[in-house]
């Protein structure tokens, strides 16, 4: 198996970009850069799929399967049969 950091569900359609810069502002890992008034997918492997960029993109140029990168939450979700893993009330 390859490193998980080499794969991500993040997708960016540059043709839709209006250059507002919001994706670069909200990303906590510097995945996007702004060059020539346009967003560039500079470091996709650093993406942690938090979904902030996609949610704040007004033209829906970004899509990502956002969710928690927590093994405990995912294992509990699969045991319970729920599709969307979230932490319990006692967790973070």
């Amino acid at each position, binding site marked *: 198996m390859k490193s*998980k950091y080499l794969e991500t569900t993040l997708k960016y359609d540059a043709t839709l970009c209006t250059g507002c810069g919001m994706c670069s502002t909200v990303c906590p890992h510097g995945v996007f850069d702004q060059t020539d008034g346009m967003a560039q997918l500079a470091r996709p492997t650093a993406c942690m799929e938090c979904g902030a960029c996609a949610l704040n993109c007004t033209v829906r140029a970004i899509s990502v399967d956002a969710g928690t990168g927590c093994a405990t939450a*995912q294992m509990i979700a699969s045991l319970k049969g729920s599709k969307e893993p979230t932490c319990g009330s006692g967790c973070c």
Partner: protein
Amino acid sequence: MNSSQGNEAKCLSSNIRYNAHSTVHLICVLTSDAHRIIITLGLFGINMITPTTSSITLTEKMQHILARAGLRRSRFRVRPGLYSLGNPNSKSHVFVTANYGLSFDTLRRALSNIDCYILVLDTKGINVWCAAGKGTFGTEELIHRIGEVKLKDYVARKILILPQLGASGIAAHEVERRTGFKVEYGPVRASDIPQYLQNHTTPNMRRVSFNFKDRSILIPVELTHMFLPTIILMALLYFLSGPVPALAALLVVIAGLLVFPLLIPWIPTPNFSTKGFLLGSIVAAPLFLLAFLSFPSAIWWKKLGLAVPYLLIVPSLVAFITLNYTGATPFTSKSGVKREIFAYFPIMFWMFLAGVFIGTLFRFIG
């Protein structure tokens, strides 16, 4: 959401409804702990703002220490609503945060000497980033809270400053479209706000860090959770199998919860499970030797049979703990963790089972 939180929402909505004829309202807040009911008698006239300060009292400092250790964390909450810091006017900044005590205190401590408003969202006592992921620090709650506190009556500057990490729950354009308030994302860390307000934002202020200090802060919470289970497990193993298995249990917990968080960047494999296998193997080696040497009178293959389980059980358990550590780090992704579980959990499971089988078998033979 549990039933007590449902009660809280119901109770709040029925009691904090603004009434111009009555100045006394009873605010009943049922905390997440169903046995404990906090009843606060609040005096409300026209003003719905609660004054606060940027100084942290000794009691609050104690609460911070307890929260960092994972004790009484879910009770460490502030009431959602509008707060004033210093003497704000209609041109003052409005900062938005979660109703987890540590989130609120970290923000107001960073805002010393700044006259401003703080809008606290109801995130059920969860910090900004996790609540944003769950959706409670979200677009709907923000829009609801803006209306609830009648924010438009207090500020002429219709700008809200949100923590950057709240962005995974908030659609800024949606908030502006529905309320007229423009959302601006401040820095990741509240301590950078003074610089942010002077337009000195650096790229570093927009990045989450996970340095040695950040990682060591997480240790007390893990230890609190694992302390009692570890003691019980050690006692059981001691009486069932002797001192070496009990020592092994202790070392597994120390390696997985104490040593691993500190060593993450330096263990030279790309994911958490393999890092755990590697660390676990280093711990298992001396245990293997110890077990091998503790049966001097046995034949070599029996010694081997009694020692090999350590090489199977210890790495698989440490790897399992480290795999679960993914949730405490700020860079693992949903799809990445999913792939890791599918690739490595079966290995951990079968290694553990094989170890227990061989160990039990040779204990009966021996």
